[in-house]
């Protein structure tokens, strides 16, 4: 129904259309979406990236729930990045009730988040994105020619998932995170067994950087406004200020004063814009561009060894290199935290409910994820606002699509279609999150 509606809205006079290419269900993305491209002769007229994933309306049904239930509910927005959803909501609640967690709790949070980055990036790099560069439909086909690489990629992914399971109980929708900390802070001995798999994962991540940097990348660049978290002492994962490559530097609480969400007709996701300048890009490229100097020596050395520079962040096809570098970082960071971990202090910081407003923002694997809640004196949710990374990137995705379609308009239809699909997959779009999904139609007039 929803699709039919879009089509009628976007409909061209069929008598003018000489040919139509459509991909109704974009593959290898998380969720349901479509691309629509309108061609007029040799010119690209308009481009739309559509999200037709049915709306689930989390913000509406969170109202009237107890604030302690929220992390278990928001994780259900996305099975690929549940930790980001849990952590953004938890940090917002902690701001609202006025508590700060202990350094140990902070470390364990960063540790489980490293697990999510490894698991999510490995999924994207090996199973969703690499097949595009190597000309396969999927990782299973790719495994016939590149068995060693696919198996290594699965090991890497498993190391991330196992870390999440060890700390959170399970890899999808972990159960151990709560407002104030953890239900049960793991014993250091219970985590030791993670060290060896993570060291192997680190080696695989380094090999991954070398493997993917040899791919052939389309010659494309765009001068995005990059938006990411930034933290004085560390590469941003779970906290920091929101900064941009054009001078934005705000606290998380100021988010809504600087960003707008616009409801566009062709999509179930809301488009985000910077009030002052419009579209922007969040995600691995933005994080790397804005925080390169916070990466460890090993990661910076790995980047240099494959001639990857900050400027390469402007080529979205090279995001696969950035994800690989971030996996290397996340493995190293996880090993560092594990080596230093002593389960000191309480599992959670106690608090009493009080009325208040709280904001939380974390770096989900796909970019910044902002949450805002208003709670009453009994700790019940009065208002909820959730702005996922894919809806923030939707405008940048459309810009890339337009530019890529213009640049490659001379290609055959199947080639152009593939290039456009790849353009969307560069973003690792998580459409389940952004619904508030995808389909490719190229229409020639």
């Amino acid at each position: 129904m929803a699709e039919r509606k879009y089509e009628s809205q976007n409909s061209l006079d069929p008598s003018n259309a000489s040919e139509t290419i459509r991909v109704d269900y974009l593959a290898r993305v998380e969720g349901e979406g479509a691309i629509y491209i309108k061609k007029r002769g040799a010119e690209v007229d308009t481009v739309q990236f559509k999200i037709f994933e049915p709306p689930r309306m989390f913000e509406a049904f969170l109202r009237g729930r107890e604030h302690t239930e929220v992390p278990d509910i928001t994780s259900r927005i996305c099975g690929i990045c549940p930790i980001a959803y849990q952590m953004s909501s938890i940090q917002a609640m902690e701001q609202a009730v006025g508590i700060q967690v202990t350094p140990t709790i902070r470390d364990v949070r960063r540790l489980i988040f490293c697990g999510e980055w490894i698991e999510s990036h490995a999924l994207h790099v090996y199973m969703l994105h690499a097949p595009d560069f190597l000309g396969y439909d999927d990782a299973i086909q790719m495994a016939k020619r590149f068995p060693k690489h696919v198996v290594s990629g699965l090991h890497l992914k498993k190391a991330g998932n196992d870390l999440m399971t060890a700390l959170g109980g399970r890899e999808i929708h972990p159960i151990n995170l709560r407002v104030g900390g953890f239900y049960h802070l793991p014993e250091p001995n219970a985590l030791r067994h993670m060290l060896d798999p993570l060291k192997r994962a680190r080696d695989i991540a380094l090999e991954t950087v070398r493997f993917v940097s040899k791919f052939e990348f389309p010659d494309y660049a765009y001068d995005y406004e990059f938006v990411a978290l930034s933290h004085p002492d560390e590469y941003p994962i779970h906290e920091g200020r929101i900064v941009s490559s054009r001078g934005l530097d705000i606290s998380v609480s100021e988010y809504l004063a600087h960003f707008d969400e616009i409801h566009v007709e062709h999509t179930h996701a809301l488009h985000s814009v910077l009030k002052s300048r419009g579209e922007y890009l969040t995600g691995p490229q933005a994080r790397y561009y804005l925080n390169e100097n916070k990466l460890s020596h090993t990661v910076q050395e790995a980047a240099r060894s494959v001639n990857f520079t900050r400027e390469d962040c402007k080529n979205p096809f090279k995001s696969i290199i950035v994800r690989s570098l971030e996996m290397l970082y996340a493995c190293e960071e996880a090993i560092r935290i594990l080596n230093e971990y002593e389960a000191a202090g309480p599992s959670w910081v106690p608090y009493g409910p009080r009325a208040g407003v709280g904001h939380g923002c974390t770096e989900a694997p796909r970019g910044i994820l902002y949450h805002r809640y208003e709670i009453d004196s009994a700790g019940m949710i009065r208002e909820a606002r959730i702005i996922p990374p894919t809806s923030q990137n939707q405008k940048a995705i459309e810009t890339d699509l337009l530019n890529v379609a213009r640049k490659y308009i001379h290609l055959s239809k199947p080639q152009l279609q593939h290039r456009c699909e790849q353009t969307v997959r560069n973003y690792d779009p998580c459409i389940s999150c952004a619904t508030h999904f995808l389909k490719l139609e190229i229409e020639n007039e």
Partner: protein
Amino acid sequence: MAATQRKKPKLAVWKFASCDGCQLSVLDCEDELLPISELIEIANFAEASSRVIGGPYDLSLVEGSITTAHDAARIQQVRAQSKFLVTIGACATGGGIQALRNYTLVDDYVRYVYAHPEYIRTLATSTPISQHVKVDFELQGCPINKNQLVEVISAFMIGRRPNVAPYSECIDCKIKGNVCVMVAHGTPCLGPITHAGCGALCPSFNRGCYGCYGPKETPNSGSIGRWFIKEMNRDKPFVMRSIRSFYSGTEFIKTASSEFESADSEISEKSSHG
């Protein structure tokens, strides 16, 4: 292809309203995925592959609930192409957390989330797949347990019933040797009425079960709700919220939670034998 090689059965994975977590469980079978793909043809799985081999399919795994008229029509097509249809997870089996809309006016929800409610087409309810088509097996959980998923696929391959226990989480908790969080700590726990399958995770982490595997066989929700109220000093809205979560789209949860709907602190003994 050797002529003697048996034709591999064809697997399809379908998505409706969901978080993608249950189909991700297929890809999370890191050790089993490549061996499974040797035995079964992954013919249609959009999240993992651009390749689509047409139906009919021997086994369809369905994730997600039905929330749009388009999806209500699409599930009929999926059923028509599928020999065995297995729902995976709480959304497909119980309507998912998004079925909380079934207890209110969906228009209010749409107006809260979207600036232009007129752009949104959605049904007033989120319903499990079984309310639309015949389902051959329902795998519970939010998310499903990947070991149980491998069991379901293995059972399908050799044509037997999957060995998935329908008893309560309490049984697994006892087998694990956990201290009962309800008895020992006074923490409300939905374990006694919740379907086993997660491995008694929450009590193992020192918290009460919040019911993400849905109702077990023959659950007595009225009794546990009254326990929460009388023995653990919780109120009716707490019980209602606890019961009304990831399986909200089922008739069972609808009936079970309505007993605790009014905000009175008094519990009617009359309704206690439901």
